[in-house]
């Protein structure tokens, strides 16, 4: 009975992923090698042109800029998320669950709605400016909305849980006796942190970074709403090619490239985590 249920649930998920993940990816992959046509989506004619187009300096610049913003956001999430995950993992279990619940609570609202809320916080006559003005800390309202700062704030806010959760899962299983052992051997706090805690939580850090880095390049509505549609991210580029330029083959090629990048990231992550296991086996 138990086996049957297992087969059923695994089968269901596999079918789901094949249908909506694999199949749609294969469709994109196929379209990315077809020729663009204005009247139809694409014509049956094999071409590499869509990928060659991506070597255009404009696209290269968009890639670079997206990487730059995604890098800043990942670093920001890591700086904020790591201490948070560490503190939560050291709390009593009941409080831990409450903290995690509070962390995930905002996800019950659509992130587009939350981004609009973020706009009303940051705008010229928004809550932040009103508060700072009434406290006398500033005399002119800060112009944060429609800058790269606003985009980064929005992205960090939206993606922080994706950094915290993998690190938390990792730190939660962390063996505290290792810290005690290090202390007994006379290590200072900074040394313990650098030489024991960080290396052992590396899989969590890498997992979190992968989960943050890629969405940071593709959440186009955040750069549209908070950045005044000025900063073009990879997500905007893909959206633009599908909807505005009506060029499905090139849009498909761009998203395939992004998938390949993500695959490379995941491979790196796997090789790192496997190495870690080997290392522990040796010592």
């Amino acid at each position, binding site marked *: 009975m138990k086996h049957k249920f297992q087969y059923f649930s695994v089968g269901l998920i596999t079918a789901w992923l094949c249908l909506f993940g694999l199949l749609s990816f294969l469709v994109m992959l196929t379209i990315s090698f077809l020729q663009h046509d204005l009247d139809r989506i694409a014509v049956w004619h094999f071409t590499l042109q869509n990928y060659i187009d991506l070597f255009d300096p404009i696209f290269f610049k968009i890639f670079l800029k997206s990487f730059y913003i995604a890098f800043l956001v990942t670093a920001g999430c890591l700086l904020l998320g790591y201490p948070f995950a560490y503190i939560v993992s050291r709390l009593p279990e009941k409080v831990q669950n409450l903290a995690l619940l509070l962390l995930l609570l905002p996800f019950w609202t659509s992130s587009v709605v939350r981004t609009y809320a973020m706009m009303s916080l940051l705008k*010229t006559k928004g809550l932040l400016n009103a508060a700072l003005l009434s406290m006398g800390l500033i005399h002119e309202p800060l112009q944060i909305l*429609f800058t790269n700062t606003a985009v980064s704030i929005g992205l960090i806010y939206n993606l922080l849980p994706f950094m915290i959760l993998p690190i938390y899962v990792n730190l939660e299983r962390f063996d505290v006796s290792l810290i005690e052992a290090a202390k007994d051997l006379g290590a200072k706090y900074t040394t313990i942190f650098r030489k024991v805690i960080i290396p052992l939580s590396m899989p969590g850090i890498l997992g979190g970074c992968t989960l943050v880095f890629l969405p940071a390049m593709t959440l186009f509505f955040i750069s549209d709403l908070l950045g*005044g549609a000025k900063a*073009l991210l990879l997500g905007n580029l893909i959206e633009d090619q599908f*909807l*505005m*330029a*009506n060029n499905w083959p090139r849009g498909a090629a761009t998203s395939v490239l992004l998938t390949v990048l993500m695959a490379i990231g995941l491979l790196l992550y796997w090789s790192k985590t496997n190495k870690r296991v080997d290392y522990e086996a040796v010592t």
Partner: protein
Amino acid sequence: MKKWVYIAFSLLCTLARANDNVVNVYAWSQEVSPKVVRQFQKDTGIRVNFSTFDSNEVLYAKMKASRQTQYDVVEPSSYYIMRMARENMIEKLDLGKLSNYKNLNPAFTHPDYDPTGEYSIPWVLGLAGIVVNRKYYPNDNLEKWTDLWSPKYRNSLLLLDDPREVFNVGLLTLGYSPNDNNVQHLKKAYENLVALLPNVRLYNSSSVPSLLIDEDVTIGMGWNADAYKAHLQNPNIEFIYPKDKFVIWVDCFVVPKNAPHRENAYKFLNYVLQAKIAALQVKETFYPTANLAAIDYLPPEIANSKIIFPSVEQLKQGYFQTDLNDDALESISRYWQLLKLQ
């Protein structure tokens, strides 16, 4: 058992018959007031299946995607009407069947995008001009698009998030036609817009009124209906018809080829051509109308608004937006991406 099948079948048939008296309308979001739809249903007994889109591209793609259209009335923008007529996607209308056609302003019945006026019924229109909050710029001399290039507006302009609208400004300020297909001219327009970039604070076209009302942006370009909405709540906001010309867009009702309920489509068109209905639409959305007779049904503050209705001389400064060829569109799209990258 057989009896039940029979009953179910006949029930289905009556349902299908009841569904027959419908008209399927596909229009820009927020451009057909729900009140207009409700009144039409009440007065004619024809049910409206109403759905909306957010860009001409989406409408065009949907009409291309299926060979047999399910729509009876669609509402593309002026320049897409040209393309659809050229590609034989829409029908030539029998204007004699539309008794209320005479209500239209003759200035809009033979536009550049539909020279014989036989394909399209103009519904709402608008134009982009300069918007400014006079609290922040009380004495600035703002008459022309070129005034926006002044270095004192550094990092403060709002531009519409719409490639064609922004390139219209780039072309007009160089003295070119906004419907110019010449790729060299588009390149010059792009360089001209690059010079404007240090002044650009944001691109937006979907929430312009609230941005203006809350003074998140105090100067830039905007559509006149949006400027009017903002002006109602923040009287400091002024709309200026640029002296170096501007572009008028007109969103029109057209009937696709092989529309399944053509008779009802004509009834719908004739209904919305009534002066009262066009006036109701203006009162709800503040978009200018091409329906001249409707002005009499409008409250004076709307009918006399300089923002919504340009004067006859001002209207002469306007270009109708027409379709561009694929090369021109491709280069606008490329330059647009370049602009956003700087």
